[in-house]
């Protein structure tokens, strides 16, 4: 029979819908992924009261922007890395490979899934923050434009990093630690929960190598008043640098991630 097989995108989207539903049923994972960032934000936002220097910007607003950035990375990096390592170790990938489901469908599904997760997490953070901290969302469309591209570039860069780490993790059950450990450390050296320039100098340099620091900075530039820019390492938002660093991570992640994933697939089917 030569009936046309369904489209790659259609299959990927259908699978993503199922993955989202299945994820929503896994309550511990849901609490860990969605509730934990919010709880941490409330804790740190309450812990560090007052304002940043003489900028007049409340400390908790800085925490909010950082947590938005880290929620994006948690969804994209964590979702991708954990998903890929699990799919390979629990038989999902083989089961899918035995059907007309394609590798591009697989990535469509993963992208839609982490995108939905990121949108849900960021929305949850923003809603809570408006309700609890009385955070005022910016009204200027230009700021939402910045928000949009930092969100998009941040997702792409950290998702591809997730492909790399998820392909390196050999066992899905132990992958949790491999994925969470560096991510938690990264949050503390990237200025997510407190002002980045409050870190020792050398730690700032370490943090600045990784994408999360730049995502948090980009989010501050989108969500917080320009008066705060003086508290950044360069004394300005450095939006151009944010875009360049995140793009570099995206390109590097794509090159390394696809090479490592291809090797993993070859190994799995050799």
């Amino acid at each position, binding site marked *: *029979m*030569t*009936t*046309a*097989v*369904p489209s790659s995108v*259609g*299959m990927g989207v*259908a*699978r993503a819908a*199922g993955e989202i*539903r*299945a*994820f929503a*049923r*896994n309550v511990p994972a849901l609490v860990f992924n969605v509730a934990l960032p919010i709880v941490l934000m409330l804790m740190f936002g309450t812990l560090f009261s007052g304002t940043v220097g003489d900028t007049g910007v409340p400390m908790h607003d800085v925490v909010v922007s950082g947590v938005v950035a880290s929620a994006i990375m948690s969804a994209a990096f964590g979702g991708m890395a954990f998903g890929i390592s699990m*799919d390979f170790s*629990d*038989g*999902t990938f*083989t*089961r899918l*490979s*035995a*059907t*007309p*489901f*394609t590798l591009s469908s697989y990535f469509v599904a993963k992208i839609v899934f982490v995108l939905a997760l990121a949108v849900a997490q960021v929305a949850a953070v923003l809603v809570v923050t408006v309700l609890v901290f009385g955070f005022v969302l910016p009204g200027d469309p230009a700021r939402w434009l910045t928000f949009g591209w930092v969100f998009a570039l941040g997702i792409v860069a950290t998702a591809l990093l997730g492909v790399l780490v998820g392909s390196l993790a050999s066992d899905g059950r132990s992958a949790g630690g491999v994925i969470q450990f560096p991510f938690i450390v990264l949050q503390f050296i990237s200025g997510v929960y407190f002002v980045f320039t409050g870190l020792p100098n050398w730690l700032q340099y370490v943090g600045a190598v990784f994408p999360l620091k730049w995502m948090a900075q980009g989010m501050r530039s989108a969500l917080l008043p320009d008066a705060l820019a003086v508290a950044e390492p360069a004394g300005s938002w450095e939006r151009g640098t944010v875009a360049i660093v995140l793009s570099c991570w995206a390109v590097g992640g794509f090159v390394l991630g696809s090479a490592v994933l291809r090797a993993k697939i070859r190994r799995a*089917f*050799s």
Partner: protein
Amino acid sequence: MSWVVEVEGLVKRYGRKTAVDGVSFRIAPGEVFGLLGPNGAGKTTIVQILAGLRQRGSGQVSVLGRDPAKPRRAWRDRIGVVPQSTNDHADWRVGELVGLFGRFFADPLPVSEALAQVGLADEHDQLVRKLSGGQRRRLDVAIGVVGRPELLFLDEPTTGFDPEARREFWRFVRELSGRGTAILLTTHYLDEAEQLADRVCVLDRGVIRQLATPAELGAHRDDAVVSWTGPAGPEQVRTDDVNAVLRGLVDRFGWQVQDLQVRRLSLEERYLDLIGRSS
């Protein structure tokens, strides 16, 4: 005649270990072909190679007219694979999962029909992780047949089945094959191979020991057993020539041979014989 599967001189090595060592066989349309053998015989490796999930070392392989090492979507649309049991998709619902896999195929079965065929009609809304071992296995089969395959690979399909479920499953496999689906079944249950397979290929350490119908399996050896009770207690011999043995017994004991029995080796005895592990 066009064969559904043609395998010629198939070899597969993992490092220095040879998993499949020069295997050849062919499967006809609608045939149920059993791969029987102990763990490590190479059954799963052969299935994975034929299903396009593993690269072969050497040899010629054709599945539905194509080389499975270069699988295409249109080819995958015509085969179904039930891999060995796994615990994937635990947070999915049964109907949801079968429905999704159906979407990958050009002409899928309706979900309700796929579930009904394997006796899971009532579990449509159940979470996969709440299924029993046997139900989980039947779900695997439903996923394997939802695309109406011409060729179905069943890798140890009845693991975890109770006797009734196994019988039910056998009925289903016969129905499927009656409708023209060719089936490659691996199993280490002899009764399963005997019940289902048109031909059985006995594998041991990567080599075919015999390829025959279940009735013929092991038939070329001394497959009759004559037993009796002599002065020193029960005795038995295996022979090709029952008459000669009986004549010998009559010479020794006259016509009063105690507890005389003549029987054919059971399938299990013939099988253990074949793979060199006598019972």
